[in-house]
């Protein structure tokens, strides 16, 4: 655990990283790697030196756990679903499903049976991941520290890897459905003949449209990451206050996040629907 406030904040924002260190790398305690090997990073420097060949174990673990919680819960209801009077759990699930169904019906006019379950997955998964924020910032890191793990960040959406992972998935779907619905020529036409429908302006169009296309996943991922990360930083800052004063700021901030957390999940879902609807539109 860290001593100074800066170290404390940095510590709480560092993921548990399992990655490959090259041979000859000098570790935090002065020892030198005799050969390249996969190991847990003990410092932030080590984590960043691992480069791309590393995995955030906490992010992946918690996001997969939340995904399994979502699927397990919904699958549990789906296997016991009744057309009669629903129980409380089934009611909750049905309300969520209906909410997503209405969103898709309003925003997506083409016929694609995949869009609604996709939106449901995104919404509930992100919601659950965001909701991990309600766990006080010190609980899990301290527990992990007791188990010998140097770092542990539990909110996956404060890790850009997680948000970009989802938004890249959405991006691939946008490309896939654009090609499927419009064909290669149609998609190429859309990228090159808009917004200025003249052959001489094709390069300009191409730059503009490709930019618009590429910005979609980036804006999706960064919006979610930025909101969650900033919120997390504030929670950590509040945790630096004396223990008896923390609740005065912590409580309002947590209550505010009751709004922010579903809102960010909703925005991500809604934009996904809108982007995919645009991908299905044939001009």
């Amino acid at each position: 655990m860290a001593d100074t406030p800066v170290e404390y904040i940095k510590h709480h924002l560092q993921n548990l990283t399992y990655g490959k260190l090259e041979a000859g790398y000098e570790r935090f305690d002065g020892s030198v790697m005799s050969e390249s090997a996969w190991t847990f990073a003990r410092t932030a420097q080590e984590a960043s030196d691992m480069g791309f060949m590393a995995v955030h174990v906490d992010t992946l673990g918690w996001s997969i756990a939340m995904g399994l919680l979502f699927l397990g819960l919904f699958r549990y209801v789906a296997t016991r679903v009744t057309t009669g009077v629903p129980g409380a759990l089934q009611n909750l699930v049905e309300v969520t499903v209906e909410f997503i169904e209405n969103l898709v019906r309003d925003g997506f006019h083409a016929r694609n049976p995949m869009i609604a379950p996709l939106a449901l997955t995104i919404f509930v998964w992100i919601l659950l991941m965001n909701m991990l924020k309600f766990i006080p910032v010190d609980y899990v890191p301290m527990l992990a520290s007791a188990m010998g793990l140097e770092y542990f960040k539990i909110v996956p959406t404060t890790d850009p890897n997680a948000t970009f992972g989802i938004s890249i998935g959405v991006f691939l779907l946008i490309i896939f459905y654009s090609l499927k619905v419009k064909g290669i020529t149609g998609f190429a036409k859309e990228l090159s003949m808009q917004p200025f429908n003249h052959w001489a302006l094709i390069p300009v169009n191409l730059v503009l449209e490709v930019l618009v296309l590429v910005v979609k996943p980036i804006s999706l991922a960064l919006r979610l990451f930025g909101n969650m990360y900033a919120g997390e930083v504030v929670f950590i800052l509040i945790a630096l206050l004396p223990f008896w004063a923390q609740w005065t700021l912590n409580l309002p901030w947590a209550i505010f996040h009751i709004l922010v957390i579903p809102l960010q999940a909703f925005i991500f879902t809604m934009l996904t629907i809108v982007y995919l609807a645009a991908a299905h539109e044939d001009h």
Partner: protein
Amino acid sequence: MNINLTLIGQSIAFAIFVWFCVKYVWPPITAAMQARQKKIADGLSAADRASLDLELAQEKAAQQMQQAKEEASVLIDQANKRAAQIVEASKDDARKEGEKLIEQARAEIQQERVQARDALRTEVALLVIAGAEKILETSVDAKAHSEMLDKLAAQL
């Protein structure tokens, strides 16, 4: 905040979750919801139909009641008429009977009167003859004077 393999792991997890949701979560839940919607719609329309049926049945019942009332009043009318006829007829019979009786009585009286007159006439004729005999001091030959006697008797 390093971008690393987590990105790819996250994308794979996302793809698997979406696949599972599309295949095993979404269809049964929405199917059940649609089935319930249909059930509710059917129930509502059945209720509508039932209330319509009730209305029709009430109307029919009212009609039948009305018809029964009408038939009953017709029957009562007929019965009253029939009773009046019977009373009238029996009055007629009684009157005829009475008249007949009166007629008979009259006839009898008449007969008795005729008999009494005849008897009286005969007696008067005898008395007249007896008187005449006393006057004439002679017996009247009944045969000889029967013509005159008959004439006399006829005059009485």
